[in-house]
C-alpha cells in the first residue's frame, strides 16, 4: 500500500512542478489577457480584465493566490469564457472519455491478440501482414486517415456524420481513426515484448523440457510479457491528450483535446493549467491501476512492497 502512496505522492509532486512551470512560463511571455474581443480592447477595458482575472499583482502574489484557490477547489476562470474552468472541463470530459475509452478497448481487444500472434508465429506469412497493417496504421498520421474517412463516408457516400458529438453515431468514425493508431502501437509493442520474452532462457528451457508450445506461450511467456504490456497501456492512458487532440480537431468533437488546443492558441492559461491538473489526475489513476494489475499478475511485486 505504501508503494502506491509513494507513487501517488510522486505524481502529485510532478503535477505541482509542471503547474508551477506553466504558471511562470505563461507570465514571462506577457500578460495572458487576450482574444476575448476579436476586434480589440481599449486600455480601460484591458486594465479592468486584468484585475478581474487577478493578473494585476506581482507574480508571487498571483502564484500564491492561485495555490490558495486550488486548496479551495477554485481552479480559476477561463480567460476566454469567463466561467470556471472546472465547468468547461466537466462539459467536455464525457466526450473525451467516450472517444478514448472505446478506442482504447478496441485497440486492446484487437491489437494485443494480433501482436502476440505475430510474435509466436514469427515466420508465418500472416504475421507479415499483421506487421504491415501495424506499420501503415503508425505511418498514416491520424488526421489524414480522419480526412479520408470524412471524404469517403460523409462527403461522398453520406453514410456517417462528419462532425460533432450529438449521438453515438457521431463517435463511430473518430473512434475508428483513433483506434487504428493505438492498435498499430499495441501490435508493435506487444510483438516486441513477446519476442523478447520468447528468447529468454527460461522459455527456452521450458521448450527444451518438451513442454507443449501452447503451455510455453500461455503459462510462461505471456504472463511475463504482460508486465511491460500493461505498463505500456498505462502510458497510453496517461498520454490520452496527445492521442485525442488531432481526432477531436478534425471531427469537431467537443472534448478535452480540442479544448486544450484552443487554450493554447488563445493563450487561455487557466484552461492549460487545469488541463495539466486533469492529466496528472489521470496519470495517478492509471498508475494505480497498473500497479494493481502488476500485483495480480506477479505475486512477487506484492511481496516486494
Amino acid at each position, binding site marked *: 500500500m505504501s508503494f502506491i502512496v509513494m507513487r501517488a505522492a510522486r505524481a502529485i509532486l510532478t503535477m505541482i512542478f509542471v503547474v508551477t512551470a506553466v504558471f511562470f512560463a505563461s507570465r514571462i511571455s506577457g500578460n495572458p489577457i487576450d*482574444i*476575448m474581443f476579436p476586434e*480589440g480592447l481599449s486600455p480601460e477595458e484591458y486594465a*479592468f480584465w486584468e484585475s478581474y482575472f487577478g493578473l494585476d499583482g506581482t507574480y508571487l502574489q498571483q502564484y500564491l493566490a492561485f495555490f490558495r484557490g486550488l486548496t479551495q477547489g477554485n481552479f480559476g476562470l477561463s480567460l476566454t469564457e469567463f466561467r470556471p474552468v472546472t465547468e468547461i472541463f466537466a462539459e467536455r470530459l464525457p466526450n473525451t472519455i467516450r472517444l478514448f475509452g472505446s478506442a482504447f478497448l478496441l485497440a486492446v481487444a484487437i491489437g494485443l491478440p494480433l501482436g502476440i500472434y505475430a510474435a509466436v508465429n514469427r515466420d508465418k506469412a500472416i504475421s507479415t501482414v499483421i506487421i504491415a497493417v501495424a506499420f501503415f496504421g503508425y505511418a498514416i498520421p491520424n488526421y489524414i486517415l480522419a480526412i479520408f474517412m470524412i*471524404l469517403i463516408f460523409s462527403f461522398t*457516400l*453520406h453514410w456517417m456524420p*462528419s462532425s460533432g458529438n450529438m449521438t453515438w453515431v457521431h463517435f463511430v468514425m473518430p473512434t475508428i481513426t483513433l483506434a487504428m493508431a493505438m492498435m498499430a502501437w499495441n501490435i508493435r509493442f506487444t510483438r516486441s515484448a513477446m519476442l523478447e520474452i520468447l528468447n529468454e532462457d527460461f522459455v527456452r528451457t521450458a521448450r527444451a523440457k518438451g513442454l507443449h508450445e501452447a503451455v510455453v506461450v500461455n503459462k510462461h511467456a505471456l504472463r511475463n510479457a504482460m508486465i511491460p504490456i500493461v505498463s505500456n497501456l498505462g502510458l497510453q492512458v496517461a498520454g490520452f491528450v496527445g492521442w485525442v487532440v488531432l481526432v477531436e480537431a478534425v471531427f469537431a468533437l467537443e472534448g478535452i483535446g480540442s479544448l486544450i488546443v484552443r487554450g493554447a492558441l488563445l493563450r487561455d492559461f487557466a484552461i492549460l493549467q487545469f488541463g495539466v491538473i486533469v492529466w496528472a489526475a489521470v496519470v495517478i489513476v492509471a498508475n494505480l491501476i497498473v500497479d494493481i494489475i502488476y500485483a495480480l499478475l506477479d505475486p512477487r511485486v506484492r511481496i516486494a512492497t
Partner: protein
Amino acid sequence: MTRLFTTSAMIALFAGAATAQELTVATANLSAYIDPGADHSNVGSQFYVNSIEPLLFKDPTSEQNVFEPGLATSWEITSPTEMVLTIREGVKFHNGDDMTMDDVVWSLENMITPGYPARVERSKEFFGNITGVEVIDDTTLKIMSDKPEPLFELILAAQQAMILPKNYTMGLSGDPNATEESDFIAFRQAPVGTGAYSYAEFTPETRIVWERHDDYWGETAPYQTVTVRRIPELAARVTALVNKEVDLITNVPPDQLDVINGAPGFKTAGGVTPLFHLMYFGGGDKGSIITPELRKAMVLSVDRDLLNEALWGGAAVVPSTHTYPQYGDYFTPGIETFEYNLEEAKKIVAENGLEGTQLPFYTDPVYYTNGLLAAQAMQEMWREIGIDIELKVVTSWNDPGTPGGWGSPDQIHNWSNPMYFADPHGSFGKMWSPDGAGMTRGLWDPSIGMEAWTALYDEFRFETDVEKRNIAYAKLMDEVKKDAPFLVLYQPFESWGMREDLDWAPYPGHIPYVLDFRAGYIGDETNGITK
C-alpha cells in the same frame, strides 16, 4: 442499401425522430460572450437580432435608412438636440418579466455613461454626443444630445442600443439592487432579451440554441429551435452541409461555391458585404520605423484589383475611398484616396532608402475570409518594392504588451471596418473619428495633430447640409491619403451555403453577417415556413 444508411436516417433512428421546425446552422466563428453593448465584432453581430432588440428597427430589406417601430412604437425629433419616443407596452423578456420604462432608461444610461469598462469604447463611438435620457411619463421618454444630432435614429437602432432587463441583470450577482460590473459579466453567459427567440443554451465559442419566445410581442418565430454550432474548418463545414448534418453554413469563399452548387439539393446565397477588409500599420509615428513614406509606398504597391480577381473571382468591390453605396446622398465614389501605382511606390522606396525594410504582418488564420491568402499575396507585392514582410499567423491579437497587439509599433495587421450604420460616421467614424476605436488604440497619429483632426472631424460630423458635409468628408479623406495610416482592400463577397429549399439571404439593411431567422425573414419548404 445506401439509402437505408443515410446519415439523417441514422441520426433520426438513434436520436429519436426529428421534431418539426428545427434549423441547424454551422458558423465559422462563434461569440465568446453575449453583450450587445460591449460587442462590435463581426462574429458577435451574427447573434443578436433574433433575441435582443433596440427601440427602433431598421428595415433589413432596404439598403437605405428606413426605420420601423421596435420597442418604441413611435418617435419624433422635437429639436436638433432632442428626440421623444413612446415605449411599447406588453413586451415580455424571455425570463417572463415585463419590459418597463425602467429597463429602457437603465439600458440606455448604461451605454451613455457606462460604469462597466467593457462598454467604454462602444459608448464613445456610438453615444459620444448623447448626454442623457429623461422620463416624461410611464411610456414617454426624451433623449438629449450635446451638439445637434442628425443621427438619432441610427444610433437608437444600433445593436449597441439594445434593451436589456434591469432587474434580471442586477440580480445576477452581488447586491440584487445595484448595478455592478459582475452583473454584466454574468449576463454574458446567461443573456436575456425581448426578441423572437430566447437563448436556451449558450456555450461560448461552441454552441447557441435558440428557442421560440412564445410571449413575443411581434409575429411568432417560425422555428421552435435553431441550433448554431461552430465548425471552424471550411472543408468540415462544407461536408456537414452536403451531408445534411446542418441546413445552413457561413463564410464560404468564392472558390468553394461550385462544390456546394454542384451538390444536388444545395445552393449558395450571398453578396458584397457592407464591410471593408483593410490593413493598418501599428504604432503611429512615435519612433517607429514605419514612416509616412514607408506607409505611402506600401499602400501604393498593393494591386487590389488583382487581389479581387484572384481571390474573389472579381466579385468583391474595390473602393476608391472609405465609402459605401448605402450612404445614399453621402456616398462619395468620386474621391480617390487609394490607388495602385507601382512606379511611384518604387520611387518613394528608392528616394528614402527604404529597400530591405523588415516588418511583421500579423493575421488570424480564419477570422477574415481569404484573410491569410490576401496577406500572403500582399507579402509578394511588397517584395516587389523591396519591403520584406514576415507573416505571423496568430489567433490572439489584442494584447498591447506583446508584438502584434493593438497599437504596438513596427507591425502590420489586418482588420475590418464594418458599416455599423449607413452613414460615414457609422463606419469611418466608428474607427477613425477622434473617439473611434482605431484612434483610441493609437493606430494613427494624424500629421496635422489631434486637435486639428478633431476640428476637421466635427466639421463633417455635425453638418446637416449634404453638399457641405460631403466636402468636409473629402477633407478627411485627403488626410487619409496624405498620411496613409491604413489601406482599404475591398468589400468581400461573402457567401452562405444552404439547403435548396431554404429561402434566406443576408439582408442589406443589417450590419454584416447578421443571421436573421425571425418571421418574414426566412422561408423553409421542408418546415412549411413561408417568408
